[in-house]
């Protein structure tokens, strides 16, 4: 009964989405207020129906209803309840339903928080989002129905992929999709503006909080994924340049560029067509990411669901959405006009340079991700592009980007003077270089690469300090958007600091250890106390016990595990980590040797590794603070007044 209800809810949602995609749009074109007014109620109804469908799938998981094929494939009666719920998005069909739920949520949010926007604009935005929903609903109903039944139902399910049975995995996809799908708002705003033919500072002001909120969610989503890889895959790595990771990183880079160019469009009216293009690109990359993960064109650790027919449907959908919006852009963008002029050295020019760097970074990730596919499609053979390529391309792009990150916020709009900037930042430059050298010497040794990395972190901090010093006395009056920017930039600093420290000073050892053996690593003594068998709810495990001491005092007790999940008989490695602000102690079990009398144990001491994720949290927090700026929620009259005032200025 419940699965049928879910199915019905999806069909009804499709009908509602069709209405939402057409009637308000026609109303906006023909100037019929009553048709336009339908947009908001339809968005609410659409949300209710999609959430009902999602709830039905979740209920099927909770009730172990294995007559639903998707539940049978992704769950098992011994699976703990929390993971049964996470199983809702553990596979292909459910992931799509989660995607759709997020989209419905963002539509609802737009419907609720858009009172200050013109009716015709809201109608167009919701209609565009309605069309995206139509595409996803059709895809689900035609090729990936989560409510498909099996008869007779199997006695028990196939279990959730053991790698996904992890708290990090419960939260990672929803946050990631919140971000991915959140860019659909900026996309819809851009398309609505192109359709309506008006694109002004007010448009940029409306778009900014939505973009920033989506970007913050995406940041957290990527961070959780990376954290998950760090402690589940057992290699101590946190980013692998895997195609699927890249798929989430590309929209992030485009979104970061978009946030910055929106600032220019709002304040100075410049970069209009560029901003619109970025809004289209950011969401297109989210869709492309979905395509890459779901179609199986690239083989990767994450590509657990692959089916060419599904791939073709997504590709057609991509072609319509992205191709259509880019065609609209090609047609309407030339009429948007240019913004005000600015000097070669100005905040605008620096933000433009930052945009170019971010977009080039995004394109090089795109190239590296798709290159194997391009070669293959041309019959030139298969190969995989690995971390060396990305590292080589990325560092030279990020160094100038960080340099600008320090300069930009201090530069004046329109026209800045380089000598004056240099004068203001001279202490920041000296202090950051000195701090980088001191930190390097303190951590062990000084090398060019590390000093560069550490300098980037300290440069950001120092330039923020200079900025705040020069604004002393007016801190109370700092707008939230500005505070958010400073916090996010501090996040970049923490991130760069963490990476530089880990890359340069992490210590790693693989040792054969029998019970009672000790091994020394970076001032820590690891004592192996042996391995015992234990049983989890749906797995059997071997659990090692290690005691770590430093200078004679016990600092951590670590219990790494090797698990075999009973249903799928898949082995997984659970690393044991003792996290800390200045270092992580990381231990994972390798293989048993000498007939099980000893084990290969991997030991790592990773200095400041948590700063990487801490930096991401700061960036997202900065985004959240900026998005909550009251200025963005100003009433329509005030914002129009603002436009006039700005135009007059």
């Amino acid at each position, binding site marked *: 009964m419940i699965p049928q209800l879910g199915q019905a809810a999806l069909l009804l949602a499709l009908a509602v989405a069709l209405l939402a995609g057409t009637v308000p749009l026609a109303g906006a074109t023909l100037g019929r207020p009553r048709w336009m007014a339908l947009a908001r109620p339809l968005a609410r109804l659409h949300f209710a129906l999609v959430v009902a469908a999602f709830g039905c799938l979740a209920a099927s998981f909770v009730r172990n209803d294995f007559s639903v094929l998707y539940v049978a494939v992704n769950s098992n009666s011994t699976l703990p309840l929390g993971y049964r719920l996470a199983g809702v998005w553990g596979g292909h069909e459910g992931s799509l339903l989660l995607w759709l739920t997020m989209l419905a949520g963002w539509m609802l949010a737009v419907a609720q928080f858009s009172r200050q926007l013109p009716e015709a604009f809201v109608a167009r935005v919701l209609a565009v989002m309605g069309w995206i929903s139509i595409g996803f609903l059709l895809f689900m109903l035609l090729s990936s129905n989560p409510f498909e039944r099996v008869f007779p139902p199997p006695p028990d399910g196939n279990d959730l992929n053991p790698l996904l049975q992890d708290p990090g995995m419960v939260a990672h996809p929803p946050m990631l999709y919140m971000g991915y799908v959140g860019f659909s708002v900026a996309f819809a705003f851009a398309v609505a503006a192109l359709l309506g033919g008006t694109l002004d500072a007010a448009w940029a002001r409306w778009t900014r909080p939505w973009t920033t909120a989506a970007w913050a969610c995406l940041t957290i989503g990527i961070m959780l994924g990376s954290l998950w890889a760090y402690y589940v895959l057992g*290699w101590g790595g946190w980013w*692998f340049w895997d195609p699927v990771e890249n798929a989430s990183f590309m929209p992030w880079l485009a979104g970061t560029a978009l946030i910055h160019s929106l600032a220019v469009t709002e304040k100075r009216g410049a970069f209009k067509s560029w901003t619109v293009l970025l809004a289209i690109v950011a969401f297109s990359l989210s869709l492309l990411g979905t*395509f890459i993960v779901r179609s199986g064109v690239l083989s990767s650790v994450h590509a657990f669901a692959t089916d060419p027919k599904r791939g073709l449907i997504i590709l057609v959908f991509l072609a319509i959405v992205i191709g259509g919006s*880019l065609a609209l852009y*090609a047609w309407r963008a030339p009429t948007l006009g240019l913004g005000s002029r600015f000097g070669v050295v100005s905040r605008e020019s620096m933000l433009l340079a930052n945009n170019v760097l971010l977009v080039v970074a995004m394109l090089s990730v795109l190239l590296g991700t798709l290159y194997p596919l391009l070669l293959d499609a041309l019959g030139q053979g298969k190969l995989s592009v690995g971390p060396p390529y990305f590292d080589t391309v990325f560092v030279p792009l990020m160094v100038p980007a960080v340099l600008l990150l320090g300069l930009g916020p201090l530069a004046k709009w329109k026209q800045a003077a380089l000598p004056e900037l240099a004068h203001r930042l001279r202490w920041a430059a000296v202090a950051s270089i000195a701090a980088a050298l001191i930190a390097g010497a303190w951590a062990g040794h000084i090398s060019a690469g590390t000093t560069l990395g550490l300098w980037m972190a300290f440069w950001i901090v120092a330039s923020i300090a200079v900025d705040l010093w020069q604004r002393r006395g007016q801190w109370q009056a700092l707008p939230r958007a500005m505070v958010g920017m400073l916090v996010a930039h501090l996040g970049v600093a923490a991130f760069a600091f963490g990476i530089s420290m880990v890359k340069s000073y992490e210590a790693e050892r693989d040792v054969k250890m029998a019970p009672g053996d000790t091994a020394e690593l970076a001032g820590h003594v690891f004592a192996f106390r042996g391995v015992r068998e234990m049983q989890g709810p749906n797995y059997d495990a071997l659990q090692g016990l290690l005691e770590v001491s430093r200078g004679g005092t016990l600092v951590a007790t670590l219990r790494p595990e090797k698990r075999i999940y009973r249903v799928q008989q898949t082995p997984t490695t659970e690393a044991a980590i003792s996290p800390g602000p200045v270092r992580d102690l990381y231990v994972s079990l390798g293989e048993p040797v000498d007939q099980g009398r000893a084990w*290969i144990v991997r030991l790592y001491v990773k200095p400041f590794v948590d700063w990487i994720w801490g930096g991401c949290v700061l960036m997202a927090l900065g985004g959240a603070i900026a998005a909550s700026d009251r200025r963005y929620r100003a009433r329509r009259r005030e914002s129009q007044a603002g436009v006039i005032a700005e135009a007059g200025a």
Partner: protein
Amino acid sequence: MKGLRFALPLALFAALVFFLWRGLSLDPREVPSPLIGKPAPAFALAQLDDAAPTLRRDDMLGKVWVLNVWASWCTACREEHALLLAFSGAGIVPIVGLDYKDTQPEAQAWLARFGNPYTATAFDGDGRVGIDFGVYGVPETFVIDRRGVVRFKQVGPLTPQVLEQRILPLLKELSRG
């Protein structure tokens, strides 16, 4: 003609769609190999572990065995590694590694770090033997019978399905025959 630059993103995207569409009809994992049913190319290579004697194809005649092409630079190899270790642990047939276009210290470190599933590893630093075997995606896995004939080839990481449904039945059949 100034308006044309606004159409550039559309043109780029159209090209991308073309490639993605072509990509859909290609399976990244399945490649026909002209080697199947033919004798495995002859080779004589130093082993990764310097102390061990030269490894030749003909050393393996009379045995059913598996050749796994890997390298320390290959991330996809890590993906199949746990499976390979389990497979090797079962001790069904010898698994010979072919360390392709690699350096010895890095390869040895890699095995020490991730575990060594191989009965022996031939070191193919310049990749010549790999070329004879038609390697163009690492990892690759070959099943070779007693007479030295290649019976199966997998491009890309092994999966539990391929191992259970293709390789294990084939090995059973070959060992019986």
